[in-house]
């Protein structure tokens, strides 16, 4: 019951956060000292003629002749009806754009997170239990993962693995076209990797895997570092607890002590960090998708910035806020699920 109220409270709080974010972004956009209507009407550079009809249509559609808070009022009304706005550059709703690009970001994010967890947790456990060189190396790699700029790492990966070693057929993109032409992919869920698994299209699946590996590794580096460090520190804390000492005194094997007793408890804060990483994956996708020309919403956001497509950009930011809030909520719920003490509280 308490968990139910907890979830409801968090959802309401999340709703307030999303609305607040939309307000903040809208207010900031209004501070930009330029009127984008000429760009939206098709003026690529100073000097193009504009159709007065087109300009009037845009001004009416976005209420550009009203103060910014009136414009926000109309925007909020549409937002509450699930409308994230209309892109004047692409001539279609922002939701349609996000639906087009989101599946690719989802796959990249899931792959990156899976890599980060599959490598970070064992590495953190080993680092905590086997002190020495391994511990130093894992801490160093965690530091590098946090410190090195993503765009630099991405370009280095391309030069090394594509240009020099030719271990991958392409420095970016989703799939090798040659494979796709020979083995057309039937769309079921809009998630290409899932569709290829569901339809048993192994060549395309393997090609997709080949292409997702480098950008996935790039985007995984930061959460990998954080997960490693968090697992290491929480593991060390748990291993120093009395009950662990007692279990060892009773003669339980080190393997059981670490993996059956200590790890479960040590993973609780790690789970929170994993939930928080969802937000990072979205942030990181902006850079990674640009470097690896991955057709996801991160690149959509960058493209919108270059085109001064403010409705698309605001829509993306609001959507990102929703994802972040959902990720945090999921982390909190999982925390409660794993730790009965939290549920009781």
């Amino acid at each position, binding site marked *: 019951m308490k968990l139910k109220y907890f979830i409801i409270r968090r959802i309401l709080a999340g709703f307030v956060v999303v609305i607040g974010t939309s307000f903040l972004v809208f207010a900031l956009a209004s501070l*930009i*000292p*330029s*009127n*984008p209507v*000429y760009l939206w009407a*098709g*003026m*690529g*550079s*100073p*000097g*193009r*003629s504009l*159709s007065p*009809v*087109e300009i009037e*249509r845009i001004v009416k559609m976005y209420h550009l002749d009203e103060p910014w808070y009136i414009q926000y009022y109309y925007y909020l009304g549409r937002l509450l009806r699930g409308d994230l706005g209309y892109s004047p*550059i*692409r*001539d*279609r709703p922002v939701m349609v754009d996000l639906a*087009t690009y989101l599946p*690719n970001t989802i796959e990249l994010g899931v792959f990156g997170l899976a890599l980060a967890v599959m490598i970070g947790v064992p590495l953190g456990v080993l680092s905590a239990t086997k002190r020495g060189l391994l511990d130093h190396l894992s801490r160093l790699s965690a530091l590098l993962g946090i410190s090195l700029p993503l765009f630099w790492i991405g*370009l280095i990966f*391309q*030069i090394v693995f594509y*240009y020099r070693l*030719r*271990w*991958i*057929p*392409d*420095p*970016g*993109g*989703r799939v*090798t*076209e*040659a*494979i796709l*032409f*020979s*083995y*057309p992919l039937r769309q079921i869920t809009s998630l290409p990797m899932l569709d290829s698994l569901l339809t048993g*299209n*192994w*060549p395309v699946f*393997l*090609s997709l895997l*080949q292409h997702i590996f480098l950008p996935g590794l790039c985007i995984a580096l930061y959460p990998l570092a954080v997960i490693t460090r968090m697992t290491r520190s929480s593991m060390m804390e748990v291993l120093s607890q009395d009950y662990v000492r007692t279990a060892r005194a009773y003669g339980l094997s080190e393997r059981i002590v670490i993996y059956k007793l200590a790890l479960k408890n040590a993973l609780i804060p790690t789970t929170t960090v994993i939930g928080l990483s969802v937000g990072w994956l979205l942030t990181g996708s902006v850079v990674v998708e*640009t*470097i690896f*020309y991955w*057709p*996801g919403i991160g690149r*959509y956001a*960058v*493209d919108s910035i270059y085109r*001064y497509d403010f409705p698309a950009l605001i829509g993306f930011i609001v959507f990102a806020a929703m994802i972040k809030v959902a990720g945090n909520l999921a982390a909190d719920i999982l925390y409660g699920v794993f730790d009965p003490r939290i549920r009781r509280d």
Partner: protein
Amino acid sequence: MRMQRGVTLEKNVKMALSAAVVVVLVVIGATSSYWLPQPAKPPVTPQLTPEQRYFLDNLVKISEERPVRLHPHSRGHANRIITKEIYDTLVTFEGSETLQVSPCLASSWEVSPDYKVFTFKLRKGVRFYPSGDPFNASCVKFSLDMIHKEDKGPLYLCVPYPYDRTEIVDEYTARIVLKFSVPYYLQMLAYPTYGAMVNPKFVQAHGGVVAGKYNEYLLTHVDGTGMWTLEDWKEGDRVVLKRNPNWWGGWDGKDNYPKRILIREVPEASTRLMLLARGDADIANIPLDFLPELNKRINSENLPITIVEKDEKGNLLPSLDQVSLILQHRYPAATRDVHIRKMICHAWPYEKYIKDVLRGYGVRSGMFPPGTLVSRQDYPRYDYDLTKAKNEFQLAAPEVKEQVIKNGIRFTYSEGRAAGKQAALMLQAELAKIDVKLVIEEVPYATEVDYSTSVTPRFEIMSGSSSADMNEPANFAQYWTTETWPPRGWRGDFRGSPESDILWQKAGMETNIEERKKIYWQIEKIFYDNASSVFLYTIPGAGIDHNVQGTWVKGFKFTVLSSVTKTFSTVYKELPSFKGGPPPKSFKLTLSVATRIEDLTGDLLSSRRH
């Protein structure tokens, strides 16, 4: 006994002679291939590997731009790259021709002496793909009516709009009637986003024509008569064009043409270069400042890449893309004084900028870029001369001089634009030599656009660029007539005078080319006398979207109208050869890793192959 010996001797001689003859015959036979004329052997067709076959069948173009609409009338260069291949026009430009149009969907035409009525005989047997509907005169009427009703196409080709109506004379004859004479209307019709012919049935079945809006279905679906048609479009990833099987030109004799064209978006220039060097891309656009370094690498690493900026003689190819400094002519800008403007014109280091900043990739030009009808070597120009610059400053009005001494002159630019920060710093250094202060201001691009359209002057000097759509200077007219001047608010630089307005109109209707040129040169002189802008240089060659290609790409025909004419109508690939030795290590035909995937998955896949 003697007789027996004689008989034996004779026999031996005969045997020896016979053996000798046999030996000689054998030797002759064995060596005959060296001295006997050999019959012609049938040609051996080399068997292509799957990698080679794929390489030849697929042409890959990579670009930083992303198409967002496939509507035939949509603006935007990235969109046009694709739509111009899918949709045909009544007439077109062929090869390097930029004035005379050639037949396309129209097989012939007549033009009335006053250039107001254009009657076209249409090609028969043309069908749209994939619908299969026939192309005829009703399509011409529908297409031109549609673009004017939507009012979203590139109607700035000619302002005011000359189109009045289209009459259907018979099924294969259409007559276009204009409101006033436009001698270059055929050129306008060759412009793909204006003259693209659409299928009325297809449009009406999917939403019809709505005033002021693009037909939404056409934004993502196509039905054209062009050589290529859309196979697949994964937005943000790639566009795949395939051969139009219904194409009216026919594919006979074009076996060496690619079967597919892949257009991929790759934002990073360094990644585009890697793909090209590896042979995984065939055509790319690389920023101009990368080109000098690329040139060195081509020579040192034997890269199989050609830079399409220069002709065979090494001269920069012309273009219609021009970079300038816009000078504000309105109060309270200091540049409202003609002498201040002339000072800036004389202070700009034209050749130094092209040599040091552009590293040679620029051509000095005047008001009409080298690719236009009326460009000439001896156009009126201001030369870099600080003495003259200083003299001009002394001639300026006292209040303006005081204003400049007190506040300086403001140079506004946005990051990433041609003639941006480096231009500002260069001009600042030159003006400092004559004790004139230049204040530099960087703003976002949208702000720059805002400044240029503000009724209240908000800049004094600003970087600018323009790209003509046709090589007919009348296309510029809508930028440089007094009706676009304040109070409507437009740029702020000299927009002409009543005299030049009349000359623009006269030139636009003059049918004699030589007379037309003279009128344009008169206009040029008026703008020169007013020091309207500082014309810096023209971006060379293919510039925008196709300036680097693999040496294995053949058939590309450069024209100043490259961004408007069809790119893939003549382009094909050959297997690469490398001058002076083996291919560079970086180059390797694609598919090797993809082939390994097939090996891994084995026979399970063979049943799925199409």
